[in-house]
């Protein structure tokens, strides 16, 4: 039990409005990825070694395509949040850190868009 005032304990810790956003986003994406990973793993097992057309039929069906896009977005969001913390913990040279963060975030965004576009193309039969 602290005798310090509420203001005294909160001062200097930053704004409570957005400071925990990173932490919360990582947990929310983690929770979303639990069922998505289970679905994806079972789907891959069921289609292991499937020929081209059969695999496309699975990926491109409306429900699968939607879940796959949810998986891609959730996965890359979660991955770049996690990699960001790793970089911030281990790279201390400011310029290298910023370069690594930009690279990781950019790569995650690019790969995410590429994955989503591929699923959309399969779903629309392109």
């Amino acid at each position, binding site marked *: 039990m602290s005798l310090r005032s509420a203001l005294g304990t909160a001062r200097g810790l930053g704004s409570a409005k957005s400071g925990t956003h990173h932490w919360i986003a990582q*947990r929310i994406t*983690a*929770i979303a*990825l*639990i069922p998505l*990973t289970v679905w994806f*793993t079972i789907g*891959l*097992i*069921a289609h*292991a*070694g499937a020929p*081209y057309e059969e*695999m*496309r039929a699975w*990926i491109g069906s409306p429900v699968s395509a939607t879940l*796959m896009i949810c998986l*891609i977005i959730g*996965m*890359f969001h979660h*991955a770049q949040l*996690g*990699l960001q913390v*790793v970089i911030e913990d281990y790279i201390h040279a400011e310029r290298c850190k910023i370069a690594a963060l930009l690279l990781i975030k950019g790569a995650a965004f690019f*790969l995410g868009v*590429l*994955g989503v*576009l*591929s*699923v959309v*193309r*399969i779903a629309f039969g*392109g």
Partner: protein
Amino acid sequence: MASAERPLSPHLQVYRPQWTSVLSISHRATGIVLSIGSVVLVWWLVAAAASPEYYASFAGVVGSVIGQLCLFGWTFCLMYHLMNGIRHLVWDAGGWLELEQARKSGVHCVGAAVVLTVVSWVAAYAAM
């Protein structure tokens, strides 16, 4: 100024590895490995969207011995990260924080990850 050589915590050289600490850094390591694996996931989707020829070349790489070994390793990383991630979420909710619970749940995570990895691969090869 404090000298740069003073020991910083945690001083890894003198710490005996424990289940909790080893599994903690493993969560990070598997997360990094899975991030690399995500590139292959996108490659798979691009190949499926491109053409039968492109998909065949992708399947050839993934179906090779080295490709299958990598996939097996990624499966274990995925299962471990999934199990240990759930353990982390339980901690965030305030559970399993006693020392013995933290150790025991960690051992269970590794066991579950091994079982899920083997079961997935046996099921996948049986389905082919």
